[in-house]
């Protein structure tokens, strides 16, 4: 391409123009591109704004769509319910309907409960009881399993509290009755331990109310305690009487003595003790002690004995009745008194009881020692003396004991026989006094160191027996003691000879058809014509 020449002044603007022209020629495409890019940028900016708007619109549309969807779901559910009802009506398939309706109702009920809990509780409460009863009847075990965690815990708490109370009572009673020998003895006699007896005593028992009621009419004669009982007591009397009469008619079957004697309600019981004209109703709490019913029976009998006429003639006028309330109060006081717990001993009282007990034990030990000592010395103090006949030296020289037979002085009783009379006094009996040889060794004392009393024979004098007469028919004994072997019998009026006397016994000798007899009899059966001489009496050894 040829470029035309130019002047200097004029050539510069031309160069610029040329430059511009060249630039425009050279940069035209780029400028077009830039412009296009700018337009694109502007377009992009516009499109960003529209996207945000679109997104908002989309969200709005989605929300509307969700609402419509819920609406459609509810309508669909209603339609399904309607269809189910129609199906049930058409085909009678209740199970199908229920299975379809159940989730619907469950959902509706759940919604309703969330919205108004109190209202729903108020709606359902009347049928809850019946529903629970039905459920228990139908599935008892399931209900037990469901309720056990609640009820079981409550019961456990209650039982534990009751046991703690009983334990406290037992501990208290055991503390009070420790050392109570009578209670322990009583328990043993009953065949139980003292702890068991304490347990029995610890079981609560209380007489709460007494009603004395006319038997046929049910009119209240007296009650105790009287406070807060004025209006209701009369009704109680009537109702108890009606119940008794009903029980008698229903279960007595005409038998006598088959009245209702107890009614139980909750933890309390009414013990009824009948009388001829009135009966006593005792409201008690707990378990009555042994013999309580007997006490009540005795009380009712005593009331009848004391006020029989008034009870029989009572026709409703309170003035004709004696004061019965004090009797009831006294009875209740007596019953409560038997159960009243004794106060624990003070420290001083405990010391006193301890010292008294120890003193008693010491006294007992000393008594035992004294008794044992006395028993041991009894043979010494009361020797079984066997009086012997001291033969005359002239008749039986062999009877003379040797001086070496004299026992030890300390153990030897006082010599006894000292015959002074001469044989000539009663010559007819003389031959009978001759002792046989067999008697000699038995009568010979043996000088031993034992405590056996051995009378010393002093054959220095000749004994002279005395005569007497029996005043009764008696048996004679071999020893001057009761319950010893009999040797024979002697009849009244028999002449006897007294050979020896020991205490209130006499050794006699008499003759009967069998010959000469001997034996011991009581002095009271002998008619003594003369006083017994001393030489015939065996003295009783003095007590040590």
């Amino acid at each position: 391409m040829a470029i035309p020449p130019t002047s200097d002044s004029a050539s510069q603007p031309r160069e610029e123009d040329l430059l511009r022209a060249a630039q425009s020629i050279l940069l035209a495409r780029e400028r077009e591109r830039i412009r296009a890019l700018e337009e694109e940028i502007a377009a992009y900016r516009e499109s960003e704004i529209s996207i945000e708007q679109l997104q908002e619109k989309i969200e709005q549309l989605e929300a509307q769509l969700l609402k419509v969807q819920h609406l459609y779901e509810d309508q669909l559910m209603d339609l399904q319910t309607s269809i189910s009802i129609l199906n049930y009506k058409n085909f009678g398939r209740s199970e199908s309907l229920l299975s379809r309706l159940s989730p619907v109702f469950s959902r509706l009920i759940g919604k309703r409960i969330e919205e108004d809990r109190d209202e729903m509780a108020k709606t359902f409460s009347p049928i809850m009881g019946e529903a629970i009863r039905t459920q228990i009847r139908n599935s008892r075990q399931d209900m037990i399993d469901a309720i056990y965690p609640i009820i079981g815990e409550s019961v456990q708490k209650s039982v534990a509290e009751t046991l703690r109370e009983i334990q406290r009572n037992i501990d208290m009673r055991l503390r009070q009755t420790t050392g109570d020998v009578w209670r322990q003895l009583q328990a043993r006699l009953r065949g139980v331990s003292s702890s068991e007896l304490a347990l029995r005593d610890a079981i609560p028992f209380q007489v709460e109310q007494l009603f004395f009621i006319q038997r046929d009419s049910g009119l209240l004669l007296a009650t105790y305690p009287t406070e807060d009982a004025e209006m209701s007591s009369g009704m109680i009397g009537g109702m108890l009487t009606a119940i008794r009469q009903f029980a008698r008619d229903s279960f007595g079957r005409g038998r006598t003595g088959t009245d209702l004697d107890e009614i139980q309600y909750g933890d309390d019981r009414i013990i009824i003790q009948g009388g001829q004209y009135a009966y006593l109703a005792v409201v008690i709490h707990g378990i009555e002690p042994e013999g309580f019913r007997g006490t009540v029976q005795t009380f009712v009998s005593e009331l009848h004995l004391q006020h029989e006429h008034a009870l029989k003639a009572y026709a409703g006028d309170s003035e004709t009745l004696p004061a019965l309330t004090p009797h009831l109060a006294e009875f209740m006081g007596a019953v409560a008194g038997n159960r009243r717990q004794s106060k624990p001993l003070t420290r001083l009282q405990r010391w006193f009881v301890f010292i008294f007990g120890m003193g008693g034990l010491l006294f007992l030990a000393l008594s035992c020692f004294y008794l044992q000592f006395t028993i041991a010395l009894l043979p010494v103090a009361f020797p079984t003396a066997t009086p012997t006949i001291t033969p005359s030296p002239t008749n039986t020289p062999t009877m003379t004991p040797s001086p070496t037979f004299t026992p030890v002085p300390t153990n030897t009783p006082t010599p006894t026989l000292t015959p002074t009379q001469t044989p000539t006094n009663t010559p007819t009996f003389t031959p009978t006094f001759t002792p046989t040889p067999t008697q000699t060794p038995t009568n010979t004392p043996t000088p031993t160191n034992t405590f056996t009393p051995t009378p010393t024979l002093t054959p220095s004098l000749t004994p002279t027996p005395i005569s007497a007469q029996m005043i009764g028919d008696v048996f004679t004994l071999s020893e001057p003691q009761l319950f010893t072997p009999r040797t024979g019998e002697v009849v009244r009026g028999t002449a006897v000879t007294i050979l020896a006397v020991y205490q209130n016994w006499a050794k006699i000798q008499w003759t009967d058809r069998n010959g000469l007899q001997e034996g011991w009899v009581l002095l009271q059966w002998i008619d003594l014509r003369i006083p017994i001489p001393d030489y015939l009496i065996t003295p009783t050894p003095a007590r040590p």
Partner: protein
Amino acid sequence: MQRGGTVKEKFRSMKIVQKKICLLGDFAVGKTSLIRRYVEERFDESYLSTIGVHMSRKRLERPNHFLDFFIWDLVGGEDFHKIGRNYLLGAAGALIVCDLTRPETLPKLAYYAEQMRAVNETAVLIFIGNKVDLATERAISDDELHQAITPLAHTFLQTSAKTGENVNNAFYQLAELLEM
């Protein structure tokens, strides 16, 4: 206060006389309604079937004492035969009721009177024709009533447990006769 205390002491010092009385009559003649009207001063429209015995108490203030009525409302009809006469024991008097709208209840008055007499010969009896307010349904005329009551020779009243007509009067007359 002192005056109130004096009145209280006066009441306390007044003696109390107790009387057991029975209400007898056939089934649904209105015995229980009569007692409700008398004792509780109101009338319950719903009928309460009497089972066995229903007991009420009413205290009357008499000139010099209180009179306590222990009212035994006994079941009527066939059930009365089952419970027997034991419930009548010790009763001083009785109100024997028939239903003026049911003629079959009229002859039973004599039966209940006989039962009461068997237990207590001196018992005071008052015969009552109840439901007198139901004039349009009345089925027993005055003449029939007199014929039935005359042999029994006792007081007779026509009452209405619904309106209260003669109810208090019946018990008042019973009290008067008991304390003659």
